[in-house]
Every structure is written in structure tokens, then in C-alpha cells.
């Protein structure tokens, strides 16, 4: 039971990270109708930027961890958002109105580009970071011989995720920008006719998605303590799975899907085999798409002639 509880805690932590990335997929799919294949690599770029900024702050002598992390978070979000904006600008905007698969192929090219750009710029080695926030928030008494740990990092990850999701939800639900986004999602042509700047809205959607991905990148860095140029691919596919599982286009769905994928992956690793944990995640993607194409919380798609 204690073992299970521990896995549950780990799963929720991992799921939070996936959920944050999945938001980017689901929003872009909702508005533009394309799979932003490079989003996983934006997450990777976010993790790297967070690492670089953290090290720069350390070199400048900012030693107080909460302050440093806050600065890292804000700066990494801003810079990763710039990456997201540029990617949309260069690789996706010129393709609006092109044939259906063009943006996807362009996105694959962008993903390869970003991966190798980071590899060349930062080196191919895995970058280890010593634990920034050590210690445990809570530990069980271990009466059954197994101690359940909730580390400080895990608490930070879950709290940050909740806060960023709330902030994000407020933007989508309560601001004019969010209204424009929802309008574009429903019918971008009609929204354009009614004076919504569709291009700007889409750009800002990419910016928001990238900012959330960079939050996920920082969390990943804190949790695992490593980053390399390849983390974006697998994390991206899993986050996409999460988005599909929750129902693509649905924001609560992305979070729910992220949590489920995180839990399934952790439990699978704990009880079956670590080697096949990616197979488990990918199989879920296949199964969901076959039997539940609109996901858990998504609207079924109507095929139009």
C-alpha cells in the first residue's frame, strides 16, 4: 500500500509536467487544427534556457533559491515564448491555407532543426544539475518498512502547475484575448469577419503554449536534474498522447490526460517493466485513437463535406 501511495505521488508529479506540455498541443490543435510537432522541442528549449539562466544567476551570486527559481521561471517563460512565437512566424504562418499535411511536415522539420540547433549550440552531452531544492516536505513513519516520501520538489511542481493552470484558465476564460481565442477555435473565418485579428490570436496562442512548456521544462529540470537535446521527442509524444486522451481541444482534458498518462507510466514502471514504459504510453495513444477518438472530455468531431 505504501509502495502504491509513493507511485501515486510520483505519477501525479510526472503527470503535472505532461499536462503543462499537453496544453500547448491542445490549444494549437483547437485553433489552427494542426499538430505542432515541434512543441516537444520547445519544451526541451525551455528546459535548457532554464538551466542556462539558473547557472547565470548562480554565477552572478543570486544564492537564495526561491528568488533564483522565480527569476528563472519568469525569464525562461519569456525567452521560450519568443522561441514559440518565432517558430510560428517562420514555419507555420506562411502555410496557412496550404494543403493539410504541409504544416505537419514543416513542424517535423522545425523539430529536427531545434534539436540539432541545441545540440550544436550546447553540446550533445547530458547536462546534470545538482538538486536545487533538497529535502522532503513530508515522510511517513515507515511502520511497514517502506517510507513514503513527498519531496519539496514534488510539492513545488504540483503547486506551480496548479498556479500556472489557474492563471492560464483565467486568461482564456476572462480576458478579451481568451474570448478571441475561443472565437477563433469555433470558427476562425467568422471571427475574422467580426474583427478578431486571427493571426495575432494564433501567435499569442503559440506564445502561451511555449510559456507553459517552459514551465514544464523547468519542472522537469528540477525533478530529474538532467537535460539533453533529445528529451523533447519522447516527452512531446507523451504529452500529445495526454492531449488526445483528454480530448484534443479541451483544456481540462489536457490536464486530466496528462495526469492519467503520468500515473499509467509510473505504475507501469513500478509493477511491470521500466524498459517498456514508452511502449505503454504509445499503446495508450493507439488504443484511445481507435476506440475513443474524441477523448475523455472532447467533443466528437463532425465530418463535413
Amino acid at each position, binding site marked *: 500500500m505504501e509502495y502504491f501511495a509513493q507511485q501515486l505521488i510520483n505519477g501525479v508529479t510526472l503527470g503535472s509536467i505532461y499536462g503543462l506540455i499537453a496544453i500547448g498541443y491542445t490549444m494549437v490543435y483547437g485553433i489552427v487544427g494542426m499538430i505542432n510537432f515541434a512543441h516537444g522541442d520547445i519544451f526541451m528549449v525551455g528546459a535548457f534556457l532554464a538551466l542556462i*539562466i539558473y547557472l547565470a544567476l548562480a*554565477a552572478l551570486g543570486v544564492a537564495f533559491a526561491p528568488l533564483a527559481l522565480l527569476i528563472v521561471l519568469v525569464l525562461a517563460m519569456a525567452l521560450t515564448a519568443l522561441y514559440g512565437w518565432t517558430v510560428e512566424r*517562420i*514555419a507555420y504562418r506562411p502555410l496557412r491555407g496550404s494543403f493539410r*499535411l504541409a504544416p505537419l511536415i*514543416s513542424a517535423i522539420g522545425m523539430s*529536427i532543426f531545434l534539436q*540539432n*540547433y541545441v545540440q*550544436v549550440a550546447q553540446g550533445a552531452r547530458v547536462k546534470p544539475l545538482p538538486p536545487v531544492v533538497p529535502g522532503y516536505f513530508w515522510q511517513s513513519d515507515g511502520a511497514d518498512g517502506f517510507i513514503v516520501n513527498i519531496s519539496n520538489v514534488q510539492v513545488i511542481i504540483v503547486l506551480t502547475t496548479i498556479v500556472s493552470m489557474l492563471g492560464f484558465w483565467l486568461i482564456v476564460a476572462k480576458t478579451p484575448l481568451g474570448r478571441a481565442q475561443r472565437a477563433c477555435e469555433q470558427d476562425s473565418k467568422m471571427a475574422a469577419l467580426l474583427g478578431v485579428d486571427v493571426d495575432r490570436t494564433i501567435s499569442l496562442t503559440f506564445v502561451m503554449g511555449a510559456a507553459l512548456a517552459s514551465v514544464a521544462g523547468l519542472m522537469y529540470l528540477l525533478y530529474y536534474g538532467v537535460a539533453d537535446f533529445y528529451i523533447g521527442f519522447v516527452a512531446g509524444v507523451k504529452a500529445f498522447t495526454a492531449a488526445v486522451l483528454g480530448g484534443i481541444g479541451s483544456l481540462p482534458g489536457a490536464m486530466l490526460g496528462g495526469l492519467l498518462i503520468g500515473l499509467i507510466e509510473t505504475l507501469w514502471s513500478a509493477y511491470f517493466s521500466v524498459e517498456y514504459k514508452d511502449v505503454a504510453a504509445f499503446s495508450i495513444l493507439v488504443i484511445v485513437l481507435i476506440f475513443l477518438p474524441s477523448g475523455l472530455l472532447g467533443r466528437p468531431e463532425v465530418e463535413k463535406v
Partner: protein
Amino acid sequence: MADTAPAQPSHPLAAALRDALITALVALGLAAPMMGLVTVQGPDGLRLDPHWQRVAIAVAVVFLGRFALNLTIWRPGARRSASFVPPRVEATLAKLARWLGPIAIAMAIALPFLPGVERYTVDLAILVLTYVMLGWGLNIVVGLAGLLDLGYVAFYAVGAYSYALLAQYFGLSFWVCLPLAGILAAFWGVLLGFPVLRLRGDYLAIVTLAFGEIIRIVLLNWYWFTGGPNGIGGIPRPSFFGLDFTPGPGGFAATFGLKFSGLHRIIFLYYLILTLALITNFVTIRLRRLPIGRAWEALREDEIACRSLGINTVNTKLTAFALGAMFAGFAGSFFATRQGFISPESFVFMESALILAIVVLGGMGSQIGVAIAAVVMIGGFELFREFKDYRMIVFGAVMVGIMVWRPRGLVSSRSPSVFLKEKKAISGALVQEGHG
């Protein structure tokens, strides 16, 4: 940023400069942390190494490039032509293209015996032809049927492992395994295709990607059967219809009264892959004229219309999938016998992306385009071997660039398979590709 020019009419030079400055500023923001501060493993943990010089270079290149473009191609009022190549030139090229195929085939047949051709050239030609064959195989799935397959390399892997394992466990020869590998790959194509073919284009793409990764991970972790990351070595080389390429009596050279040379096997492999590739091409061209081929192309154009006309979309998609997979299986078993060693390393997602890039760059659905693209791409990779990391950056950028400037690929005209009185090539922009 060209379209966000200031509303008030300002001097074009000033506007171009302003725009270039903004772009350079963005580039500075992108490059400064990522390229300027490099994380290096020091004795006591990570530290940062400043590399401001390359940031300066990158920003300068962006600024000057943008400025030059603003003054030339993107200057306000400049006319944008739909294509780089004027229509008349393209028509002439199309006429030439009719001869291009036969000439290319004749060249390919003569290649090993041309003067100045060394072992290295033939080796490279074998590699190029393998990708030409894979490109043609994927072209059936992506170009003709319009199904985006991101896990094509999985079938290549199935073919390679089929031969390697059959040879290892049952001692079967290459010539028995070649058709078996094709059949097994086609079988896997049907098996994987059947549940997912109801999905729309981009969903299908992601699911095929997932399948590709699943197969690779299984190959990687199934130690006792596939050797895991160590792969399978000592795969038997092909024989010339029973005659081995060995020195001494009974070998190929002795039987034909030739002096033994290691080149014989290379040349034989070359003709083998050339034959396989041409068979792929021939089958594809023929199938396009059959009802099934027409059904593929109709499916690509409009799936709902297809269904309304009574075409069985599931069977149509499955045959495309299975045939594409079969050719990948053939290519895979050829790859195994040529290398003599295979491991899951050779079947990563990048390979799928590369084959897809060849098909897309060549112009989806165009046979000659795919062949040209394979030569350009693989030849280019080989040419820039020293710039190992940079060539992948260029590869990614080229993929984006092709989609932005020439989404129909290099050869963008399509010749119809059915015509009334006169055969007219139509522009690729008129076909829908990839409705899925």
C-alpha cells in the same frame, strides 16, 4: 514582419532598416542565452562558457539578410510569382523529363563500368538506390494514397530483422528470405494499418509514429531474441544464384573464369538494389493505371466522395499500406544482407523523417522527383560528411523551407493516369494530397 509595416507612408529604406532592426533584436533574444552561454561540465558541476562571438555573427547575418531581402524580394509592391520557375521553362523541363527517366536508368545500368568509378562510388550509389527504393515505396502510401506515414522505417526494420532472424535461426538463404521479408512486412502493414486507418490524416501520422517507436523499443529490449542493442551480426551475404562471392573453386569468380575481386560482390549488390528499385517503380506505375491505383488517388483527393461512390476505403487504404510496407521489407532485407549487421540504431525516427523528406522534397506522387530528391539528399549528406551536426540543422531548415516556398516539391506537375484525347500534365497545386 513584412506585412506589419507602419501604417504611415515612410521612406522605404527607413522602413526596411527598422524592420531589419526588429528582426535582429528578436534574433538576439533567441541566440543570446542559447548560443552565447554554453553549459560546460567543470570539475565542480556545470559552469557557463561565454561565446558572444557567434551570437554577434548570427545577429549580424540575420540583420543583413533581412535588410537585403527587404530591399529586394520583399520590398513593398514587389510581385510575388507563384513559382520560382516560369511556366514556359517548366513546360520545357517537363518535355525533357520524359527523356530523363530512360537516360537515368541507362546511366544507372552503366555506372559500375564507367571509367573512374571506384568502390566508394558504387557503395554510395547502393546507399542512394536504397533510399530511392524506400522513397518510391513510401510514395505509394503518401503520394498516391495520401496517408501520412511517420513510422515507415518500422517496416524497413521488419524486413531487415526477418532476414537476419530467419538466417540465424533457420539458416535460410537470402533468396528465400527476400520474398518472405516482403510478405512479413506487408503482413505487419495490414496488422498495424487495420485498426488505425479510420483516423484522419494527422492522427494517422502520429499513430504510425507511435507504432514505429513501439517496434523499435521492442527490438531494443527483446534481448534473447533480437540481441537487443547489440543487434545481430554475421548475417550471411547474398550469393549469385547459389554461387558465393568467395575466392577458390566453386566461387563466383572461378565459375566464370574471372580473377577474384572484392568488387564483384559490390557490383552484384548494386545491380540487385537497382533491380529491386526498378521493380518498385514499375509496379507503382502499373498500379496507378489499375482500378486500385485510381482508387488511391481518388481517396487522396476526397475520401467522402470516394465512399459515396462505393469505393471500399478500408481495403483501398490497406492495400496501399501493405504494398508500401512490402517494398520497405524488400529494402530492409537487402539492407541486412549488405551490412551484414543490424541493430535498432538503424531504425530510428530520423530515418522515417528522412524518407518522408525525400518523398516530400521530390514532389509527392512524382516518381522521377523522388529519385532526384534521394540523389540530392543522400549525396548531399555524404558530401557534407565533415559537418556532421550542421547538416542536420540544414536538413530541418530545408524541410521547413520547402514547405514554405515550394510545398509541392521539386517536380510539381502531375501526369494524369486517365485522359481524354490528349495527355496534359497538371500542376501539383490542383491535386489535394493528403486529405487522408
